[in-house]
């Protein structure tokens, strides 16, 4: 279980805005985050992964304190073991599909399984520049899964995929997440897109 | 009224005095450009706008005259005297032996190809029969000025330079030196010419005559040059 109780300062043109987020994510649950552009969705994911720090508050995951401003604890992202799918994918231009997964894990069988899941087994020697937008997005998802994370953070997962591919991928992703037992947080500004996932909804609009 | 005088680097200390004296006598300002004789000749040959050239030897100005860059044949205005010196008091009684000891790491001389004082230094080493043995310790200055820099900053332990340096430094910086026996090298006969650029300039003519006048000669003498 992950419990979060933090304050974030968002920078906007006309001054700063304070956002208070207090919520618990139970182990293995799926939470869908909705909210308008610029409302702080990506920022929240980065804070959970340890890539930025909130102004104040605490993050505790399965009894381990990841962040606490008063105790001055801020666990490095390396130690949090979160799978992160970036909004802009953040693929490594120098690595092929295969190398991306090998960089993340040594488990060859697992890599094979992932490649099939993402329909990328025909593209193992392609670098990101020679993948279509949709293929890139799928590789980003596979790479995040490769480390077998206990916490999966996915930012705008299907925006570059056409509907056929989207349905296909979602259907295969669900059992996999269950199998890993990963707590999952998915961000999107398109509610329809996440219909296939059962889970709670966290609407950022309500926070303002 | 200005004239531009190209002067061999060994004259640098004495030039300042000559400039002041000449200005006082005639009101003419001298812009002095200092460098090794050879470098100045190369510049003059490529069109440098100098009016008068004071060389450290006779052959450089003769070349200029031959190639049509000078108004007349050069005449001697002074003859120079070579010293060996250091800012350390290491004793020069047996300088030819001293140079080969471990005490001396670097010996500064001017580039013999373009600086007559450098040529004289090399001849002196040859005369003592130690040129080959000293060679690994020799560093070459672009002109006698750079040699002076190397000596006075102490980056070279010993150097061969002009006697006028001694007068220049006076009591400010202690300098230990010995005049090299003039028999050890060909006489440093220093020649002057008016250049083509200054041919029609009466001020250049005035300066030329001034340098050959008794007033200038006594200044040269004070700085260790020999004059007729």
């Amino acid at each position, binding site marked *: 279980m992950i419990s979060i109780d933090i304050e974030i300062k968002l920078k906007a043109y006309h001054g700063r805005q304070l956002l208070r987020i207090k919520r618990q994510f139970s182990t293995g649950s799926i939470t869908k985050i909705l909210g308008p552009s610029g409302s702080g969705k990506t920022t929240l994911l*980065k804070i959970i*992964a*340890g*890539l930025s720090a909130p102004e104040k508050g605490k993050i505790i995951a399965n009894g381990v304190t990841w962040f606490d401003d008063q105790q001055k604890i801020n666990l*490095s*992202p*390396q*130690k*949090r*073991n*979160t*799978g*992160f799918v*970036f909004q*802009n994918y*953040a693929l*490594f*231009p*120098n690595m092929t599909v295969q190398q991306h997964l090998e*960089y*993340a894990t040594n488990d060859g069988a697992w890599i094979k399984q992932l490649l099939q899941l993402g329909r990328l087994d025909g593209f193992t020697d392609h*670098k990101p*520049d*020679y993948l279509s937008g949709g293929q890139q997005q799928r590789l980003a998802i596979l*790479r*995040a899964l*490769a*480390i077998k994370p206990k916490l999966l953070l996915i930012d705008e997962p299907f925006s570059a995929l056409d509907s056929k591919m989207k349905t296909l991928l979602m259907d295969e992703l669900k059992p996999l997440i269950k199998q890993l037992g990963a707590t999952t947080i998915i961000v999107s500004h398109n509610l329809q897109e996440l219909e296939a996932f059962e889970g709670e909804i966290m609407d950022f609009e309500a926070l303002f | 009224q200005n004239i531009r005088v190209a002067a061999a680097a060994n004259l640098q200390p004495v030039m300042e005095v000559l400039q002041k004296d000449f200005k006082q006598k005639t009101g003419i300002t001298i812009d002095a450009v200092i460098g*090794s004789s*050879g*470098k100045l*000749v*190369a510049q003059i*040959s490529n069109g440098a706008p100098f009016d008068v050239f004071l060389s450290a030897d006779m052959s450089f100005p003769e070349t200029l005259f031959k190639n049509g860059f000078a108004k007349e044949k050069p005449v001697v205005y002074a003859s120079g005297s070579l010293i060996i010196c250091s*800012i350390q008091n290491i004793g020069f009684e047996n300088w030819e032996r001293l140079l080969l000891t471990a005490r001396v*790491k*670097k010996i*500064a001389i001017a*580039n013999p*190809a*373009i600086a007559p004082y450098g040529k004289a230094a090399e001849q002196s080493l040859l005369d003592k029969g130690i040129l080959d043995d000293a060679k690994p310790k*020799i*560093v*070459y*200055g*672009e002109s006698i000025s750079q040699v002076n*820099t*190397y000596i006075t*900053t*102490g*980056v*070279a332990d010993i150097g061969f330079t002009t006697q006028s340096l001694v007068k220049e430094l006076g009591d400010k910086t202690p300098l230990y030196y010995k005049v090299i026996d003039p028999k050890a090298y060909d006489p440093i006969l220093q020649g002057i010419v008016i250049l083509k650029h200054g041919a029609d300039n009466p001020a250049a003519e005035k300066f030329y005559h001034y340098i050959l006048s008794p007033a200038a000669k006594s200044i040269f003498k004070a700085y260790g040059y020999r004059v007729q």
Partner: protein
Amino acid sequence: MDLSPIWLTLKLAGITTLLLLLIGLPFAWWLSRGRSFIKIIFEAIITMPLVLPPSVLGFYLLLAFSPQHGLGKWLHNTFDVQLVFSFPGLILASVIYSIPFMVGPVKSALQQLPGSLAEASYTMGKTEWQTFRYVLLPNIKPSLLTAAVLTFAHTLGEFGVVLMIGGNIPGVTRVASIAVYDSVEKMDYASANNYSLILFSITFVLVIAVFVFNKYQAKGPLA
């Protein structure tokens, strides 16, 4: 013609480039990560050799290296090392002289990489060093090559500093740029021309090679 100045120059440029790869890469990495006042100052300092007159640099090095006082004296007394008129001194001067050519381009290239690349690597449990080695460095290869070649070529062309602290010693400090100057002063224009042509050719080939390589890199397998 005496070719030793050319060899000496190539040796000097090669060693300097190697040293600067060792020193410059970590330094560029440090500079590329975030901006603080201290980093701005450091960056300004290493940019100085790019814009300072070589004669000024040479003058200060002459003072610093002189065995009569300060650093030079200490080096001389402690290690019996002399930095003026010596090849090691030229190497040190070259490293100072060329450092902006190595650090500048590498730093800019690292900065232009999206921050999310390193972040992605961190979430995968990779250390900073692994991230630098396997993710950052391979993705700035063209800039790295450009920086190395420019460093090499710039060292080939070092002149003012060597004129000040080198002493024109054949085989030790008489590098090619000095040989050109020396030949011109002697009015030995044929030698000056030969040295210049050799230097010009090496530089030209290097520069063209980098551009062509970078063009190829940028375009990739689609050509």
